[in-house]
């Protein structure tokens, strides 16, 4: 299925991409989890990847962070190819991520978990420690975790555990933030708080790529959407236009559902 690019009102002149993926494919045996996806992320904007369950969104994120090997295609970050590097080198280039399921150290406090992100860029050296601690405090403050620094994950609600993941990611002061369902399990107020935080980070020039099921949240939060189904890109462009795209409606609602929509 060919990608249907929709005219993006904001994007006239092509800006230099923070991240560019060309013809990326990830196949597991005969399963084409991602097949021929090309995306380019320009600086200071929030991009979203939308798609039903099993559409290949999380595998695409794993490919972008080198956690799964590419079957085909190339990856560029800041103009430099990185499709053969080992996964741990991605953080040093300025890429931070959160995971689909909460992944935080169970035996450590909120502060320690966030510090793991702040120290990811080699801040373990003594001279960097105080700066890292400052970054931890700022990240904790910004994600609404102030007062919970000494709590352990099992003392926090799921929504707060998600915040710890986001705080850990932003504590590394990344150039690109990849968020896999950042508001899953959160109530409306918490979701709005996180959407507001992501908007603030965009205002500071941070490029973000979100993966979410929540169409409304994606339309509200993102500047540009990519829609996927069966491992392929089926549409990309302005959020409102993408969610109205027939291929996207069909992917979410099926043919009959689209007729009634």
């Amino acid at each position, binding site marked *: 299925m060919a990608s249907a690019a929709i005219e993006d009102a904001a994007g006239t002149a092509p800006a230099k991409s923070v991240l560019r993926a060309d013809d990326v494919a990830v196949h597991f045996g005969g399963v084409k989890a991602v097949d021929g996806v090309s995306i380019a992320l320009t600086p200071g904007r929030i991009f979203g990847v939308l798609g039903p369950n099993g559409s290949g969104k999380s595998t695409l994120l794993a490919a972008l962070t080198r956690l799964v090997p590419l079957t085909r295609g190339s990856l560029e970050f800041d103009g430099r190819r990185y499709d053969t590097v080992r996964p741990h080198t*991605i953080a040093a280039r300025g890429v931070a991520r959160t995971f689909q399921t909460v992944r935080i150290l169970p035996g450590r406090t909120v502060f320690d978990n966030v510090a793991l992100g702040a120290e990811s860029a080699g801040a373990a050296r003594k001279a960097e420690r105080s700066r*890292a601690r400052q970054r931890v405090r700022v990240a904790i403050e910004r994600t609404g975790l102030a007062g919970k620094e000494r709590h352990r994950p099992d003392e926090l609600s799921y929504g707060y555990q998600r915040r710890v993941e986001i705080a850990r990611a932003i504590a590394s002061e990344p150039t690109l933030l990849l968020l896999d369902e950042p508001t899953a399990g959160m109530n409306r107020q*918490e979701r709005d708080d996180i959407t507001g935080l992501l908007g603030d980070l965009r205002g500071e020039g941070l490029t973000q790529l979100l993966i979410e099921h929540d169409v409304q949240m994606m339309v509200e939060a993102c500047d540009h959407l990519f829609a996927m189904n069966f491992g392929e890109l089926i549409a990309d462009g302005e959020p409102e236009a993408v969610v109205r795209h027939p291929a996207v409606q069909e992917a979410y609602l099926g043919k009959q559902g689209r007729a009634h929509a």
Partner: protein
Amino acid sequence: MIDWYFSHIVLIQSTLTTLLLALSVQVPLRAGVFSFAGVGCYGIGGYIAAIGMVHYGLSTATAILLAAVAGGVVAYTLGLLIQRLTGLYLAMATVAFTLIISVLVVNGGDLTGGAAGLFGALGMLDTGHLLAVAAVVVAGLTFTEIGPLGRRVEAVREDPELAAAMGIDVARYRRATFAVSGVLGGLSGSMTVLLRSTVTPDDINFHLVVLALTIIIVGGSRSWIGALVGTVIFVWMPEVLAFVGEWEDVVYGVLVAAAAVYLPGGVTGAAVDGYRKYRRKRREAADTPPDGPSPHPAAAGVGGDS
């Protein structure tokens, strides 16, 4: 006190050398590496120290240093060879390595003394030397348990994929644990042999693997304190359980089984969990207003801690 010390000097010295052996298995476990290579390096260290003193007339310090370096180099090389293995497969490979060492020394001819082993390797070692080595090792390992390095080691153990996303070279950490494990095994083996003055192939058997593992299961696997607690329990248990006579092995088995079932984090883990629960209760009590929780739902906050 002095009388007590001299009557228990063997147990005291054995505690210190066994602690190093237990740490040689605990260090990789703390990074999620199920390896017994340290036990094999205990054998390598013991034989290198004995060969060095008996055949080449090395000094005690040189023999111990050589044994530690050899243990580290061999374990690091083994780590490179089997770095793709994980879990039980890795454990089996390292147990096989230990057994291979015992076979090699049996067939080592005059160099290793064959099945009879080597005699006359009496080192100039006293409890003070052992304490100093143990203190340096413990101080070094403490740095791997606290601060940024402690967090990183824990991330490597708990979630290697997360650790990689945080910029941690997981494979490098795993290889480093092999090297440290080998050094600790080499130190323990060489000092044990130089205290006893003899080494035989029977000294490097599967029993050492079981001993190191049970020490860590009962004492605790997350901190050197756990290794120390477990070592004290198992080195001194025969002395304490002398009154049960031939039932000693049964009591030993029951204690290990009970610890595995009821103390998953070992004695140290249970103590730490108890302390955390106590602090949590104190914090919750401090957070609760004197009149009790507010009856107004809004006061509880939306999306707060569950």
